[in-house]
């Protein structure tokens, strides 16, 4: 269900699960656009030479995944802030899923609080985030 007004949001509502594109080509595209095109993000072998398990998805890309997930759920939402904690590396070319749940609604102010997690296939949380999102009712 796509959210267009805050009155449609329910406390405890789960956002549709989002599967981000962590392929090397896509991470390279992001890293180049963001000015973060270091070898640890764009080259598995170079990352392993640094002692990493493989090329890393930049933390700011994981943050961007969280914002995109919110916009897929509520296309007109204005994200006021996104706070992310990097608990463990997110590795390029590995599958991840992102989940989100509504934890607070302030209908008068038009604000919704959302908890977000990036999990690997084993269900381990790699990134945890919280977001404050403004969703207006059409008349406001």
């Amino acid at each position, binding site marked *: 269900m796509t959210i267009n007004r805050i009155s449609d949001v329910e406390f405890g509502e789960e956002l549709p699960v989002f599967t981000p*594109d962590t392929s090397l080509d896509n991470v390279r595209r992001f890293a180049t656009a*963001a000015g973060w095109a270091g070898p640890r993000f764009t080259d598995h072998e170079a990352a392993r030479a640094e002692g990493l398990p493989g090329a890393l998805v930049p933390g*700011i890309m994981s*943050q*961007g995944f969280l914002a995109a997930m919110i916009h897929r759920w509520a296309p007109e939402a204005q994200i006021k802030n996104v706070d992310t*904690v990097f608990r463990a590396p997110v590795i390029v070319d590995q599958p991840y899923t992102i989940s989100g749940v509504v934890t607070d609604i302030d209908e008068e102010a038009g604000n919704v609080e959302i908890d977000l997690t990036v999990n690997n296939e084993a269900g381990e949380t790699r990134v945890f985030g919280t977001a404050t999102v403004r969703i207006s009712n059409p008349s406001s």
Partner: protein
Amino acid sequence: MDIEALKEEFLNKDFDEQSFDVDADDIVNFALACGEIAPRYTDPSHPDFQAPPTFASSFHAGRRMPEGFPKIPGLGMDGGKASSLKHPIRPGVRLVGRTHLHDIYTKTGRSGPMTFLVMRMEIYDPDGVQLATADTSVVIRERPGK
């Protein structure tokens, strides 16, 4: 490490200033790679075209730490990012980012004591209007046996 003394000496004092030119193609590629589908982030011809809300996190300060800040022993890691958007970031405008040390605190986790340093960049447009803030948290874990 006397955290209170470090706060007194270094907190909330700008130690870096950088200029940034935001390019429409970079906004589109950033947005599409993250999975954005809203046209205001992916289509430069959209009347409300703007950077995604976390774009400010990609801006780099020229210095990582204030001049004279002591080296805290241990293993440093990127602990997290926080972005706060006050006004949209749009292409074709030269922005200025000013960075200060926003917070210092300690915690003891399962792996031992940790020091957290939070660097905050405030991003301004040419009229001096603050558009966004981007926080970077660095976690320094004390090495075992130290």
